[in-house]
């Protein structure tokens, strides 16, 4: 429940801050950058989608850390099971809990903040979310590999989390600064948020989604390949260094 409410609690100060700065819930200046003047729904969607960012970055690496602490990691790595299957199992468990959190958030947003969602828009949004999750789990697999070696990876995860917040349109449109706009092109969250907000807030036709979904799919392949390579490399490294037995 904490994780369901936390992103909403996190977003409320930004809503009040925005209201104080622009003098209301809508802003023409904001609209020029974001394509919508409705600041509150823009940020709420960012908060909902970023739940998957939280869970994927902290989930898999944290789970590896706990296995290491419990002393069970050696038995997992010493089993004939394909490690990618074990990681996917952990990812699936994270996805289910994240989806429950997102559903709770949606209910809070719809009944608490007046956000509306037409039934016909659910499927394209789900497709986009699915592709986003795949890309984020590519990154999570890489972080799980790094956790095998360095154990306490929270500082690294925090850094990545803040970089994602800085360079993707979770709280603000990336057009706010040229550097942020440039870096945002390699972050899957950017395309997912643009696509989801396009359908949800801007009433764009489904056809307008395909470009962002295509890019998201390509980034997924890159992130998953990158994540698995890092995990494979780190697994070999810890077997060489003996770090697999340390906790």
């Amino acid at each position, binding site marked *: 429940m904490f994780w369901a409410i936390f992103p909403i609690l996190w977003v409320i100060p930004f809503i009040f801050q925005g209201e104080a700065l622009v003098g209301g819930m809508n802003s023409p200046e904001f609209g020029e950058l974001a394509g919508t003047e409705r600041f509150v729904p823009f940020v709420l969607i960012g908060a909902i989608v970023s739940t998957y960012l939280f869970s994927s970055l902290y989930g898999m690496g944290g789970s590896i850390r706990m296995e290491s602490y419990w*002393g069970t990691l050696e038995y997992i790595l*010493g089993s*004939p*099971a394909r490690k990618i299957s*074990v990681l996917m199992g952990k990812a699936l468990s994270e996805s289910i809990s994240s989806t429950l959190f997102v559903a709770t958030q949606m209910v809070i947003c719809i009944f608490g903040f007046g956000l509306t969602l037409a039934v016909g828009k659910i499927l394209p949004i789900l497709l986009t979310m699915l592709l986003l999750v795949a890309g984020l789990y590519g990154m999570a697999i890489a972080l799980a590999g790094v956790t095998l070696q360095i154990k306490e990876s929270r500082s690294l995860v925090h850094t990545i989390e803040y970089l994602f917040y800085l360079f993707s349109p979770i709280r603000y449109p990336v057009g706010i600064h040229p550097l942020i706009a440039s870096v945002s092109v390699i972050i899957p969250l950017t395309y997912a948020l643009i696509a989801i907000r396009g359908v949800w807030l801007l009433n764009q036709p489904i056809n307008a989604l395909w470009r962002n979904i295509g890019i998201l799919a390509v980034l997924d392949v890159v992130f998953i390949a990158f994540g698995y390579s890092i995990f494979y490399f780190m697994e070999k490294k810890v*077997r060489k260094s*003996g770090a697999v037995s340390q906790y």
Partner: protein
Amino acid sequence: MDISRNAIIAKGLVKTFKKKARRKYLVGPKIGKDELIYAVNGVDLEVKKGELFGLLGPNGAGKTTLVKCLSTLLLPNRGTALINGHDIIDDPIAARESIGITTGGERTLYWKLSGRDNLRYFAALYGLSSAKAHERIDYLLEIMGLQEKQDERIEKYSTGMRQKISICRALIHDPLVLLLDEPTLGLDPSFSRFIRSFIKKDLNETRGKTILLTTHYMDEADQLCDRIAIMNNGKIVAVDTPENLKKSIPHDEVLEVKCVGTADFEGIGQRMYYRTENGVSVYRIHAEYVEEIMSEVIKAADSAKILSMNVTKPTLEDVFIHLTGARLTGESREE
């Protein structure tokens, strides 16, 4: 290398760890040099199919590192090993399928899960179908006498019961080779006796499992093993049956002196070592003719009060001292 006769073959295994020199500050020059530690140093080993083979050595001898290399958890720097004919480097998955492993320490299970659920999870990791896993778990819990406790969380188990579950886990996929690293470490005498008997009679003699057992308890190695490799500083210094190892030392009698207080027996006999047991000093003095040194021993006891003097046969610890000049740090246990 005879694959048909041997379940475990290690050839020139070397495993080193780098001990990095410290820096005075976060950056800047190191104090001293990086050190390369040879945890396993050129180990050649052949364990026959169905053999109960012991690795005996003090803490830090390299036993656990060797077991971890054989179990594919550590990649050796040089050399390789075959487990049931599968190369641990080229074909680690097949090697893992042939191995069941227990390592020392209590924290190797999910404490918030029941004993049965722990075994179910590991059965899945070894690719057992649900029905097969159910059947194996029932069987293993029964022979370990844990049916009544199977649904209780591991955190409520005693140390001995956790070790039984660890052994069940090692056996869940019915492997041909068992690597048991200090299986009785920290257990009370009754659990130790049960585990030893189970390893020897049930697993080895009845089921014909090949077992590589590491221990620093000499009496455990002596009682259980068909053959023993004595390990020190990463090297195997001798391999033979316990009886032959004990025969290998040049004198077949040892004078064991128990006394209160410390005595100076240095220079008496050919070799002497000392340990304490429950506040009593125990000296084992090796000599060619024990009778000839008794008067010297009584004289040298000085202020120490001698409780007993016994002429005993050499133990594996005597063999270890004879071979390495050091002594095993683990005490033999009262049972």
